[in-house]
């Protein structure tokens, strides 16, 4: 197994004194390259914190994160920016697009920021896969929620990142749009060999993944491979007891 990103003994606390909250209490995990991993857990389980740390948006108190052979904790803000720009893609729950740019410009944004020109063939492939068709010249305000998230997903892929992080990407979508988005993400993994790590609390969303990791109280509580909605719900029930 080739690991895209590895986390070792990760610990993180918020607050001080009596108000201290442990978000991560020693997590060690590997995320396989070319696979779709979902992270689940109840609110406060530390799943978002883990994702933010993996993505270099937040820092650990203890432990380390290795993106390939890069130790994220040793990077300056400038170097982290470059890592995000070149090696990482993002899909957030909401507000994923710049309102002043049209869909195409939003998709190409990471490349524009880096000042490199797009690989036309790859761009076309991604756009075809995401199925936006003639909506590419539209501004975000003229797109539906599902379309907006698919633009965000295309943006995450277009710079060929080593890994894409998604934070509740379908959280604001209806079930049909949600299904379309997750299908696209699945396609990205299967067809393009993209590595994706997604945080979600929705079992049916997680069922699109190759592997689901369950967090509870900042620790890994369980993990299942090749999940189905039912197996996930069972596991959740089991953990809840």
């Amino acid at each position, binding site marked *: 197994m080739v690991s895209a990103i590895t986390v070792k003994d990760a610990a993180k606390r918020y607050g001080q004194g009596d108000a201290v909250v442990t978000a991560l209490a020693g997590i060690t995990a590997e995320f396989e390259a070319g696979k779709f991993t979902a992270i689940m857990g109840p609110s406060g389980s530390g799943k978002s914190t883990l994702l933010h740390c993996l993505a270099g948006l937040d820092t650990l108190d203890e432990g380390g994160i290795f993106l390939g052979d890069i130790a994220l904790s040793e990077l300056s803000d400038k170097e982290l920016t470059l890592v995000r*720009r070149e090696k990482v893609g993002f899909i*957030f729950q909401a507000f994923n697009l710049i309102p*002043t740019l049209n869909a195409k410009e939003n998709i190409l944004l990471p490349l*524009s*920021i880096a000042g490199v020109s797009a690989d036309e063939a790859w761009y076309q492939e991604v756009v075809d896969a995401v199925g936006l068709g003639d909506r590419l010249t539209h501004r975000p305000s003229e797109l539906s929620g599902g379309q907006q998230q698919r633009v965000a997903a295309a943006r995450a892929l277009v710079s060929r990142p080593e890994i894409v992080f998604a934070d509740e990407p379908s959280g604001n979508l209806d079930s049909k749009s949600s299904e379309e988005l997750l299908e696209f993400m699945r396609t990205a993994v299967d067809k393009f060999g993209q590595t994706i790590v997604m945080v979600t609390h929705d079992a049916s969303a997680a069922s699109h993944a190759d592997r689901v990791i369950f967090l509870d109280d900042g620790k890994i509580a369980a993990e299942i491979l090749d999940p189905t909605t039912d197996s996930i719900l069972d596991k959740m029930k089991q953990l809840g007891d």
Partner: protein
Amino acid sequence: MLKVAWSSVLANKIRLLLTSFSIVIGVAFVAGSFVFTDTITTRFDRLFADISAGVDVYVQPVAPEFGNDFGQVELSMPQDVLNDVLAVDGVNVAEAGVGGFAQLVDSEGDVVGGFGPPTLGFSWSQDPDMTPLRIAPENGRPPQTAGEVAIDVATARTQGYEIGDTVSLLFTGPVEHFTLVGLANFGDEDNVAGATLAIFEFEEAQRLFGLEGRISQISVSAEPGVLAEDLAARIGSVLSEDVEAITAAQSTADQTAEIQEGLGFLTIGLLVFAVIAVFVGSFVIYNTFRIIVAQRTRELALLRAIGATGGQVTRMVVLEAFIVALVSSVIGIFAGIGLSLFLAFALSAAGLGFPDGPMTVLPRTVIVGLLVGVVVTLVASVVPARSASRISPVAAMQADLSATPRKTLRKRTIVGLGVSGAGFALVAVGLFGDFGNNLQCLGLGAVVAFVGISILAPIAARPFATFVGWPIRKIFNLFGDHVSAELAVQNTRRQPRRTASTASALMIGVTLIVFVAIFAASIKVSVGNTVAEIFPADISVSSSNFTIGVSPDYTENLRALPEIGQVTTLNSTQIRIQELGIETDVAAIEPDTAGGMVFSGASDEDLAELGRTNGLLIREDFEGAGGQERAEEQLGKTFTIELPNGTVETGRVVGVFTDGSFGDYIITRDRFVTGIEPVTDAFVLANAAEGVSVEAAKLAAEDAALVYPNAQVQTKTELVADAEAQIDGLLIIFTALLGLAIIIAILGITNTLALSIIERTREIGLLRAVGMSRRQLRRMIRWESVIVAVFGAFLGMLTGIALGWAVVQALKDEGLGDFALPVGQLVTLIGVAAIAGVFAAIYPAYKASRLNILDAISYQ
């Protein structure tokens, strides 16, 4: 509601701080101008009261009812008046004094001072009760005979004089030399308001000031129990018509009023800038409150949802504005006191001394300052507050607030065109109309036009951003950072109203600067021409001080020089023509020598006739009692002419002239000097002798001026350059003051940007998350700021050019030159605006680049 408003003020500290800055500046100017004027008044009041401490009544010649200040001679009365006064019942002591112009001349032969504080000469008073001047035993003794002088301690110190030294002084004739016998204090002070004092023995003073047998003033003290008012009335009854007796209190009040009048231009100037600062500030305030309301839509909607009425929401926003206004007005008043302190200091440093003393802050100053700050802020916040009340409760539930429907531009275009059209119409009426309040009409028109243009500006904002954005994008493409520029351009386009109102604040300052620059450029051309036309002579000689002119003795010497050809003099004064019932400016010339030397537009025959008959010349389009009248109809009429010193003579109108530089009439110098003693001339004009270069003639004229150190010799070229330099100097002062309006506007840009960044927190977080570096982010915000600034400058430039053009057209008849466009200055101004934009962005860009990405993307 007060609690909600107050907590909102606290929550929005930084943005409200920036807003309040614009209020502070406006209020500071208002308060500063009041404090400055009041302080000067009280201090001079005290000074004059000190001077007349032991005196109850002054007897002095009656001041002329008309006449201009320049060249006004020291008024005097016959010495026998003293005997009449002494004979009056109730007079304790009466002492006659003479005074006049006396200027120190240093060892280099140059005059000392003379540009600001007066250079005064007095006779020494025998009675110590009648004068504040004291000579301490260690400081020598009072002057007792001719050839002796005492000077004030401060001047002696700065000039390095010691008792026994020879001191040179300039009066109206050649320099004279004296032995320094005493150093005088003014009460306990070394000096009076920066004036230089020279004190002589009484008869010597009469001779020096050309007042043999005459006196300037009588100081009278009353016997115990006699009221000053009664004594003044009693003395008045024995005096002739041209001499008056006034109480010391009255004299103090008169002199203070005179000082106040002299400084009136400063007060008006400060108030004008206060108005400009307040006006620009109101744009910034309006903008800030609008953005704050927009940002708090959800919060305000929530208040509405839980039962607040629209009125309550409005009141809350207005209350918030009130709190900010109150706090900043108080700060503004203190800043105003600081401003007036600085002003007093600067004027002292420039050589205009003011008496020492405390600052005077009247209740009126505080009240007006608070009113201005509060009223302006409330007015500027009313529109945003009203729109706050229209937020529907449903807005609290809506997820996306950024996609507000765009309003139709047609209504805006119509209203904007209407308002700015009305503004320009008012400007035109002010310029070309003929009624009393043209200037006010012009000012009001400009204000209305500004508002109109700012209503129209949002329409232009988008195309302009695209237009300016084009080269910026091209440049950034070269550096491979296309996206920062693209986003900067898009950001200025996304809220055209906000971009426009931010830019409008800058527009006002730029308009005024452009207007002043155009006006100065146009006037410079015409002043150069006019000066050269009025003084066609090779050389002109004028006085370096504003009190006395050039000595006629000097003119005599000049005439005798072989290097010098024709010589003539030119004076200007006022006369009253009794038949027409008007007081008017006149030029006084020497008809025999004026031909070709002084531009008057009079034929040689008319000049000769003027000299022969000692009559009058009248200007072609002179201003008669009932407006324009025909000059020809006045020919041959005999007028009764009254001069400022009271002399009444008759003169016949013998000719017509064309040039109006010095007034509607020309009289002879002979008539001008009647009753004036001693005589000096405002201008002496000379040509180089045949075959002598102008430079050589100038050197000769300067040599002759060695013993007349106030005589300033200039060639025609120097005279023109001098006039132009004065305009440049004024231009710099105006630009510097208007720069303040620019600074307020720049702070407005900073404020708007900082607020936009709070609004765009999540967007910035997203940009950072997908790999935008801090540097790129700062660059984006910087260019956003530059585009807004350049937009404002561009609007201002167009308006300024339009306004400048109109004013130049309107004043063409007044001798203003052609419309001149100072292209270099205008280009510089755009550049300065762009740089100012960079500065305005420093703080917001820093704030944005320091945003924590995680906080930013989870920001609600």
